[in-house]
């Protein structure tokens, strides 16, 4: 068991270093979340005047979406990095070491969690500078990032599974588009009460909605909001299910 945590730690360090090697590959990750945030905050400001809209400022409403988007985008690189390791043969080297395979998978996901933390923090600082207040304070930020990092680990498994099953970089890269339907079939742009009925039903079935709502509750609501617990449970369930599926794919890849 001791070696399991040591292996996870050392492999995580190796993977985390890849975030900024090269640095130029890291910087563009910030562009799209900040761009979406800026354009939405400016163009949809009038929406906040609608009856039933929960806040006076669309900037406040969209700020959790901006943080979530930056974290969601952080998950897209993990599968690519694994498929590059597979293509180069390095993954084979890891596989024939006396290292627990769960540690190899979790180390990749730790990279996703750290990337989510870095990207989310940059966008958080930006929204704080624009005047958005965090209703639940410092500990609210801690819980928010906990939920977002667990979710980022779970969602990154989609890329890992694709990498293990197809070993094809283009296939893994193409799965990035999944981010868009899952992000837009949520309350990212509008509260659920103002969405058409059919759309709202789809939104309720989307696990991403619960992560986003937990983020929004921690930023704009209060500790008593049920959405916080729901978001945490959905994040943990997503992570456990997806890590299990990734391990099964790993086993299958060696047959």
């Amino acid at each position, binding site marked *: 068991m001791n070696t399991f945590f040591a292996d996870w730690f050392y492999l995580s360090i190796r993977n985390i270093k890849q975030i900024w090697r090269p640095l130029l590959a890291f910087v563009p990750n910030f562009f799209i979340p900040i761009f979406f945030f800026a354009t939405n905050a400016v163009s949809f400001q009038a929406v906040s005047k609608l009856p039933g809209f929960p806040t006076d400022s669309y900037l406040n409403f969209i700020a959790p979406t901006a943080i979530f988007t930056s974290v969601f985008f952080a998950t897209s690189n993990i599968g690519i990095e694994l498929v590059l390791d597979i293509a180069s043969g390095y993954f084979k080297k890891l596989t024939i070491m006396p290292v627990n395979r769960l540690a190899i998978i979790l180390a990749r996901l730790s990279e996703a969690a750290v990337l989510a933390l870095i990207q989310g923090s940059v966008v958080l600082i930006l929204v704080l500078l624009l005047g958005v207040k965090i209703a639940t304070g410092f500990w609210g930020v801690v819980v928010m990032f906990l939920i977002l990092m667990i979710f980022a680990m779970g969602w990154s498994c989609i890329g890992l599974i694709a990498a293990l099953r197809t070993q094809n970089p283009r296939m893994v890269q193409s799965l990035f588009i999944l981010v868009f339907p899952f992000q837009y079939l949520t309350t990212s742009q509008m509260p659920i009460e103002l969405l058409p009925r059919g759309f709202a039903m789809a939104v309720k079935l989307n696990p991403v909605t619960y992560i986003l709502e937990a983020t929004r509750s921690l930023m704009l609501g209060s500790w008593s909001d049920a959405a916080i617990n729901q978001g945490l449970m959905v994040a943990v369930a997503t992570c456990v299910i997806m890590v299990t599926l990734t391990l099964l794919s790993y086993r299958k890849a060696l*047959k």
Partner: protein
Amino acid sequence: MKYAIEVQDLVKRYPNSEKNAVDGISFTVTPGEFFGFLGPNGAGKSTTINMLVNLIKPTSGVVKIAGFDVQHQPDEVYKRVGFAMQEIGLDETATAREMMQLHARLYHLPTENMDKKINDLLEMVELLPVADKYTSTYSGGMKRRFDLALSLIHEPKVLFLDEPTVGLDPHARQLIWKHLKELNKKGMTILLTTHFMEEAEQLCDRIAIVDQGKMVTEGTPKELMKEHKADSIEEVFLKVTGHSLGADEINQHAQDPFSRALPK
């Protein structure tokens, strides 16, 4: 330990294939032996070597390395084998020293003297001056030499080498041969696959030749040349694998690479 490598009736049939890629191969390698495993392209060499290190599951058969069953005691096997692969497989976002430190930790080696050991290995392959450079900056020969050093970090009992000198210039090849001879002299068991017959003749105590998934001949270089009335191992190779080269190159049993793009 009687055998360093023991292979019994090893069979591999890939999904959707009508023919075995490896078809009932059996052989043994004694501790300290330098064993050559030769064959034309598509003969099943790489599939066999991948099964020996548990990278591919066999369809049937038994593989034991240093007395441990690869299927049932994989961690015991992993601790005892080193593998320098055809595709090298380096982390190009890391320096040579970082990679060696990581591998030493993943093999759970004691930390005392780790730095000295890393320096010694890098010096052995003449890469100590570039130890702190990213491996992406290395030439092909440097990468091969580094890969050899990396595969030795945990002092494996059995070293698998899959075409370790392919693409190297004569100087780099000679350097690798020298290291391999020294390692073997110190008692390391080595299994080598190569397309260079001269390499096999120079290095190997015993050679097996496989073709179409089956072992077609086995013995010391002298025995093979005598048995097949040949003047060189290359001549033996051509005699025992003398079918149409075209059939091998087409590799009729290979999976469609693009079908892998869709999860099954």
